[in-house]
């Protein structure tokens, strides 16, 4: 019985293709809007997360400077910088720390192979590669004696390799001499590419041992940044508190002095940013869901019109022996099939739209099966909800009256 009633509903949908299409238009728009919004929002969240995790997960960045905030400025002008000893102290005295990398930075032009390239030269230790989730494409990291002695060796990022060494034999530049200001360093390793991120091109970099940078470039023993990577599963809040305490002691701050350093937590940053985009996604999704509801009312409206328009048909069906619930079911199924059809068409459009838009907006295409299924179920539910009233109206018609209807 259900099958034949389903076939009846399908037939009457096909008999009125144009009207069926107009009926589902609202649902189509609603579903595709919801899914597109959510998919794009998820993509944006993913891309923010990827950008931040590109900096390194479980990473704390410590920089000298006044407390950030209104009027704080954040400049490191008058405050003391860090020393290499701070890094060792953190590693040895605070539990849960995986690695500490002191980092110095300088913007310089490097020359080799007859080409020059302006890049950022970083001085640090091998811990820097761990903290920043760097992988080696080829070559090796610093040897212990090279770090101690401040040897003239360097690792280069993918962008530097491409700009300087593309087209050479081997193309890697491994073993080549790279001129950095007044000294030359031997390229001992190439870093695997991380790609473009919101923080700029991370691959545009040359890494030398910290001592090398201090002695041959900056001429001071100061360290601009400390990168502290935490062990997996360590308590970030506690670790941050003891880090703060330790640094206050080492920097001789009195109890009522403000911190003269800032600790940035990439994990926290990631959570804050992605929860912001999550809220935006939810909001946009909710706005789109309202249009889905409007689509449902559209279905009810057209189903009501259709019941009126087909009064004689309903009268005939009742006269030749259709039961009340068969007519009810037919109209209900018609509404559900229509709105589910709208859902399917909406999903197809949303897939195309969010795929196109995400590549246009340069965020990953984040297909979310849950929101697709939910939209489909929701649109079918709308069919039941808004189809029920017209269907009941049809089923309760008096066959004699209905047949006489003009």
């Amino acid at each position, binding site marked *: 019985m259900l099958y034949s009633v389903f*076939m009846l509903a399908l037939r009457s949908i096909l*008999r009125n293709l144009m009207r069926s299409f107009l009926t589902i238009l609202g649902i189509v728009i609603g579903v595709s809007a919801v899914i597109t919004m959510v998919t794009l929002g998820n993509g944006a969240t993913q891309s923010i997360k990827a950008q931040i995790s590109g900096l390194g997960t479980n990473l704390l960045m410590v920089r000298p400077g006044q407390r950030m905030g209104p009027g704080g400025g954040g400049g490191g002008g008058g405050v003391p910088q860090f020393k290499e000893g701070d890094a060792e102290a953190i590693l040895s005295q605070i539990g849960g720390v995986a690695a500490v990398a002191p980092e110095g930075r300088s913007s310089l032009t490097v020359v080799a192979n007859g080409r020059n390239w302006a890049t950022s030269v970083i001085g640090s230790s091998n811990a820097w590669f761990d903290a920043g989730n760097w992988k080696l494409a080829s070559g090796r990291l610093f040897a212990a004696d090279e770090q101690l002695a401040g040897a003239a060796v360097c690792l280069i990022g993918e962008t530097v390799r491409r700009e300087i060494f593309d087209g050479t034999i081997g193309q890697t530049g491994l073993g080549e001499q790279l001129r950095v200001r007044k000294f030359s360093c031997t390229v001992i390793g190439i870093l695997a590419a991380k790609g473009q991120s919101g923080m700029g091109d991370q691959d545009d970099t040359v890494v030398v041992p910290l001592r090398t940078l201090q002695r041959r470039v900056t001429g001071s023993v100061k360290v601009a940044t400390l990168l502290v990577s935490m062990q997996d599963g360590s308590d970030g809040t506690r670790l941050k508190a003891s880090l703060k305490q330790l640094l206050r002691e080492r920097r001789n701050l009195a109890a009522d002095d403000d911190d003269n350093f800032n600790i940035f937590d990439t994990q926290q940053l990631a959570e804050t940013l992605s929860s912001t985009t999550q809220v935006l996604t939810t909001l946009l999704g909710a706005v789109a869901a309202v249009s889905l509801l409007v689509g449902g009312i559209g279905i009810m409206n057209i189903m009501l019109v259709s019941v009126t328009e087909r009064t*004689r048909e309903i009268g005939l*069906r*009742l006269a*030749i*022996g*259709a*039961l*009340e619930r068969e007519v009810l079911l037919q109209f209900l199924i018609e509404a559900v099939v229509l709105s589910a059809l709208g859902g399917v068409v909406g999903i197809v459009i949303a897939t195309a739209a969010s795929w196109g838009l995400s590549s246009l907006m340069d965020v990953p295409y984040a297909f979310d099966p849950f929101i697709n299924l939910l939209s489909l179920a929701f649109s079918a539910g709308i069919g039941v909800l808004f189809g029920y009233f017209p269907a009941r109206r049809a089923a309760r018609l008096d066959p004699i009256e209905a047949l006489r209807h003009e």
Partner: protein
Amino acid sequence: MSDLLIQLRGVTKLYGSGQAELLALKGIDLDIRAGEFVAIMGPSGSGKSTAMNILGCLDTPSAGQYLFKGAHVEVLSRDQRARLRRRFLGFVFQGFNLLARTSAQENVELPLLYRGDSAGVRRAAAAKALQAVGLGGWEHHTPAELSGGQQQRVAIARAIVTAPAVVLADEPTGNLDTQRSHEIMGLLMALNQEQGITVLMVTHEPDMAAYARRMVHFVDGRIASDVPNLYPTNSAPDAALPAEIL
């Protein structure tokens, strides 16, 4: 008594209430045997359609009894009456009431759908019914592609496809010209004679009523006369003519 198909006993029908109250049937007694061909006639507003609706189990009497095959109909629920209609009754309407944009075949199959017959059974039965009304080969035409007479034939095929005990036709020729009307009457008569289907028909036209073998006259909600037609028209004149002339 066993072939007594329909018995009406003191059936009345009251429409409206208070000031607008109207007694459309004022106590009808009527017996119809299986295989009869009855024409119901009478002036407009005399209660013919009201009686037909009750006979067709589309409506219930306000008072009185209606026995169909000996069973009381006036106590049945809406759904029970629907089941009775789908099993025993076929309807032909003045306005044909075919589904638009739907082939003759599918229109005829409609009552079988509600009976839950399989597609194969439906197709065969519909084809047979269309054949019986002389529309073999027209299965795939939609109502818009058929003449009025052909549309009424499709409607008759739809009425007989379930092999009903009774076909009820309220002014089946009301929308047709004389020639088409005679063709339809010839068809109803053939169904009555060859398949033994009981036919109840309302008509205003004496020429059409002449096909029936019994004539019931309604006047003002009462049966004024109920007489057999001893010399019913045998066949549609136009259908018979060519054979005689040639």
